[in-house]
């Protein structure tokens, strides 16, 4: 095992050396860094050219410059010395600083998108595999192919037009005309009809109920101007919480396990009481406090499950803990919604909340909630675009993996010995289907850090991809090399992790020592 890892690391280091040499030469050869001065008619043209030549060390041939750069970069390997030197960019800023800023921007952009895409993609993949060849399966497959074929810059421009400009115009006077409300209700009803399984009667009934509820809610929103002052309130949280408690219990323990259901419902009661208790506390929220509250929520949930007990304590604890976390999320959502009017009327936002560019409103002032909303409104469009295009891969892959597992002999054995369908799916099939998916997820996380060049360009987020593209366009090797090294190292490390994780998760696969 250790031999294998060491061998992989040594190979990776050699590949990295070769590739970085290649990248340096290519960047240096990709253009003339002095081109903008050559065409200019400024009197101090020669002086500018000289200073840039000195800055970029253009008198030294590119292969030699690479080794100079490598000498500086090698200092980064010394831990805690702080002597890391990746050179400076064309504006004279050290690359290590630029990389730090860009990394933060990129990670805030891509993390949410990646997590959501993985969650939704896996869920859709599992559901479509369980309902193979149903209308739902065909619908999701077609959507997956469609999203797979969408150019992201096209999607991004459409989102800017309809998601930002259109929605902001709507918010100015949030009235939903009756025909539109009914139309949206019909669409949701049809989707619910397709999603709901069972015979025709059940499908029509589900579709009808969803249609009625959605239409009624939209009309209510329109009449009360809900979009100006949104909020959930304790009643909605309680009702949604009970629904969540049933759903979570169904998935984790099965409704037959009454103790688990009880603990989940008790968690909902505690959550609703806590809703009133922590409102004053939430008014002075900081990020740390939210994290601590989240930990406390999980602990309280587990304590409830432990106290209720039952023949399987673990199941009760799991059900209660997951329910409390979801409920806590609802409370948080409600608090963010309470801050919406303050954000909406903020002098910097001026009633057009959904932003099309940047990662935050410049010079905005406000408490934790207003700043959180600000990030949210800036992230929602690029995140949506990224989710749309990366969803398809996860859905298709999970579906294929799940279908293969459902055909395995041990699934038939499980059914034959009388295990309930929920346990077959959640215990036997789902976990095994996730093994190949886990390796893909590891690959993709390794690739995340490279950022999304096109998304960052369209939405003017100054992340890693932007730094890279900017370096190329200005024929500036140092930022290009900085981004490349970060991306390549993470990609290689995560490749290794993916392989090791596969052999850890699936004992049939062994790494060659």
């Amino acid at each position, binding site marked *: 095992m250790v031999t294998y890892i060491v061998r992989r690391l040594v190979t990776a280091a050699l590949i990295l050396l070769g590739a970085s040499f290649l990248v340096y030469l*290519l960047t240096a050869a*990709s253009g003339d860094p002095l081109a903008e001065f050559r065409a200019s008619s400024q009197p101090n043209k020669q002086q500018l050219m000289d200073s840039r030549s000195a800055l970029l060390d253009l008198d030294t041939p590119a292969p030699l410059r690479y080794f100079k750069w490598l000498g500086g970069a090698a200092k980064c390997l010394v831990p805690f010395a702080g002597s890391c030197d990746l050179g400076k960019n064309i504006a004279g800023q050290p690359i290590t600083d630029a990389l730090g800023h860009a990394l933060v921007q990129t990670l805030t952009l891509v993390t949410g998108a990646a997590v959501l895409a993985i969650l939704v993609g896996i869920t859709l993949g599992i559901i479509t595999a369980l309902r193979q060849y149903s209308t739902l399966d065909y619908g999701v497959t077609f959507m997956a192919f469609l999203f797979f074929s969408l150019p992201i810059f*096209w999607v991004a421009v459409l989102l800017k037009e309809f998601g930002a400009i259109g929605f902001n115009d709507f918010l100015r006077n949030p009235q939903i005309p009756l025909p539109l409300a009914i139309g949206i209700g019909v669409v949701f009803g049809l989707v619910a009809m397709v999603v709901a399984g069972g015979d025709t009667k059940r499908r029509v009934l589900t579709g009808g109920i969803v249609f009625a509820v959605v239409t009624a809610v939209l009309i209510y929103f329109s009449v009360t101007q809900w979009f100006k002052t949104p909020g959930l309130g304790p009643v909605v949280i309680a009702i949604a919480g009970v629904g969540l408690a049933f759903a979570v219990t169904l998935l984790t323990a099965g409704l037959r396990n009454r103790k688990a259901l009880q603990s989940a419902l008790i968690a909902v009661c505690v959550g609703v009481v806590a809703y009133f208790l922590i409102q004053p506390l939430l008014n002075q929220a900081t990020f740390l406090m939210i994290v601590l509250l989240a930990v406390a929520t999980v602990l309280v949930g587990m304590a409830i499950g432990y106290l209720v007990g039952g023949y399987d304590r673990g199941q009760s604890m799991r059900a209660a803990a997951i329910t409390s976390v979801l409920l806590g999320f609802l409370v948080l959502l409600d608090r963010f919604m309470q801050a919406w009017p303050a954000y909406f009327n903020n002098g910097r936002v001026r009633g057009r909340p959904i932003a099309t560019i940047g990662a935050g409103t410049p010079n905005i002032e406000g408490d934790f909630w207003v700043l959180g909303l600000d990030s949210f409104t800036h992230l929602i469009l690029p995140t949506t675009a990224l989710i749309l295009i990366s969803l398809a891969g996860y859905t298709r892959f999970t579906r294929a993996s799940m279908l293969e597992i459902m055909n395995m002999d041990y699934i038939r054995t499980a059914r034959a010995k009388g295990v309930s369908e929920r346990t077959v799916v959640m215990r036997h099939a789902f976990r095994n289907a996730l093994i*190949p998916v886990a390796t*893909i997820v590891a690959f993709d996380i390794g690739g995340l850090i490279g950022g999304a060049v*096109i998304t960052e*360009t369209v939405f003017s987020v100054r992340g890693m991809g932007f730094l*890279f593209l900017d370096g190329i*366009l200005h024929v500036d090797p140092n930022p290009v090399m900085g981004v490349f090294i970060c991306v390549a190292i993470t990609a290689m490390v995560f490749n290794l992790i993916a392989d090791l994780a596969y052999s850890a998760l699936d004992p049939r696969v062994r790494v060659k020592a």
Partner: protein
Amino acid sequence: MSQPSQQDEIVAEQASLKQQAAAGIEPVIEAKGLSQGQIVRKRFLGHSGAIVGLIVFAIIFIMAFTAVGYAGIPGWWRYGHEDVSPLVNDGAPTASLWPLAWGEHPFGQDRIGRDLFAMTMRGAQQSITIMLVIGLIAGLIGVVVGALSGYFRGWMEAILMRLTDVIIIVPALLLAAVMAQFAGRRDEGSWFATFASSNGVLALGIFLGLISWVGLARLMRGEFLSLREREFVDAARISGASNARIIFKHILPNAVGVLIVNVTLTMSAAILTETALSYLGVGVKSPDTSLGLLISQNQEAFATRPWLFWFPGLFIVLICLSINFIGDGLRDAFDPRQKKFNAKKARAAGGSPAAEKTPVTAIDGGTVGGNAAGEHRGA
């Protein structure tokens, strides 16, 4: 990849086919003496998504290459992609569905009066050309590298696979930028610069092809690694076949399914890469045009002239979607595990819901499982 006896598997599969002819799983009648090619063709033609994709792609292909002409041959459309004509109806599209009419400028015009239909057709032409060039080059190099490293192993494999590793982590964006830079230097007079500046699109396709073979090479290597251990290769070697003969006559035909499917998928990814590079300004350059470049040039005009944005995007999506469906159909056609399943027949046969979950083959084919996993890595 060590499936002990795939021959047994095939026997088992055929046996199980006869038993499970009911419950909506239509057995492919292999007893009739159809060749491999005939079976694949039959399955592909039975895949409605792939056939629709093929028809859509054929229509776009013919329209793109005949409308504005190609390589000096004039097309049937009255405007070229660079012709400027007076604005009709302020440049709005004149095509309408009811009554069905084509009009003077079916897709509209841009600000200075160029015909968008001609530009879109020219762009589609360029994108399809690049796609085909990339598919051809990537396929060729991928097969050669994969076959050599998978078949000979040893130092050959070590060198070729490390080369693959290096190329796979060098960003395509950088290579395209270097390429664009070379193409821009018309004055330097090297043969490459002359070629690139006169055939910008072809050069871009070749260049992208030279870097997109890596995923394919890894897949082909995997295929060769498993196929070279099979009995028929031993038999060929004992009867005195040369290495080249074994590679091309014995192993390659068995790997052709994986190859074709993945070349198709590489091509559908390539079309998105090309449009993205053109969008970022390092792909196809003005005055020539491509679908990505059209979108990039017109995105500011979305509020005033949305059609400039809709039609090129629509064509990118249509081309890519049809190629993806064709690839899906090919994958099903080449997958020996895949049996055409007809839900209506299953229900008519009174089959229980469990019927569709009945495994068709006893064991999953090692090669095909490897294909599905490896393919995602390639993507």
